[in-house]
């Protein structure tokens, strides 16, 4: 039962981290849909 909860929690942690990691690699929608000359921040 503990391992089951751990598996579910790990899935949620991965889900929370995924967008942060993708953004680090330049995969945000804003970056994908703008040219290099656009300042996003």
């Amino acid at each position, binding site marked *: 039962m503990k391992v089951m909860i751990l*598996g579910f929690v790990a899935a949620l942690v991965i889900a929370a981290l995924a967008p942060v990691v993708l953004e680090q690699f330049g995969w945000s929608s804003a970056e994908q849909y703008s040219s290099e000359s656009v300042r996003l921040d």
Partner: protein
Amino acid sequence: MNVKIIGAAVLVLATLFTNPGWAQEAPEVDRTSTGGAQTLEDIMARQEQLKVDESFRSENLGDPARAAPINEQLGTLGGRSQPEIWRGVRYNEIETSTQVRGPAVDVLIQDGGMPWYELRRGPVITYGGGAILAFLLLLVVFYFVRGRIKIDGGPSGTKIERFKAIERFGHWLLAGSFIALALTGLLTLMGRSFLIPVIGQEAFSPLAIGSKWLHNNIAWAFMLGLVMTFVMWVAHNIPNKLDWHWLKAGGGIFTNSHPSAKKFNAGQKIIFWTVMILGFSVSLSGLSLLFPFEMPMFASTFEVINSVLGTDFPTALAPHEEMQLSNIWHSIVAFLMMLAIIAHIYIGTVGMEGAYDAMGDGHVDLAWARQHHDLWVEERQAKQGKGESP
């Protein structure tokens, strides 16, 4: 016998003659009255699903070499009239450029949108949802007809370790993320049809936004779980002769017999390979949807299929058509996976006494193990060289 063969041949011929794919060429059309433009005969021929030679339209794109001066009528259009320009766009025959940045933004027209929308909200929901409901009903009937598969003679009280913690972690990572993906996927697919009429647009909106976020991001956990379980269990799931005997006996479900099995029986191997193959496929189409226009895969897949089977699937697809096909394929494979997983959940919980313990705390009753995985128990005990309490 001959009558049957002749009957089958007539049926096949009748199918071929009525199939639009074998449509006849449309007769030559005289277009002098329209100056070469489309006539009523052309429209009628298309409606009758005859093959119409479209070159009179696709090649009628004006003549930039004879463009009027810039201050004359149509001069600014570079020798093309508005209909000719849009015809060129329609047949992908003129260069387009745009200042808008992003993938596939230079596609002005693609005509796969409505067929995709109709397919998604019609047959995909009807057949996919219907299959799940029918299968759930079938399992309820099966439960009342067959009843729970009991441990013969009751539990022994002695436990044996079935799955290590890391195996159970991989399983639950995969299972938890799959259930989240299935629920959020169903909500995204069917919410507009079934939830909005009940809870309204305002309540559905945050639910849909949350579902999209969870679906897109928990997919990574699913893919990690898929890789983990594949690596840990593939060696135990290679089909062998034992599986054939297990399948011939129907797993003993209806006869109350217990065909021999190692760590995984043939039924579990079918679930394993179903999850792995469909999981890999749904992950690929999911990645294609997660990164729009970056991972087109259907044109190249169709090329391979055409070369192998001699079929005629389209190999020139607009970027948006690639996404539409990915979306439909994603839904179909996901529905198939849901059916397999519902069967898996049934047999792992209410369908069989003692089965849940294997993934619950990793230890199963020895009587259960001997009943369903006798050869695995023998292997375990031989390795440990002990008695009945490994």
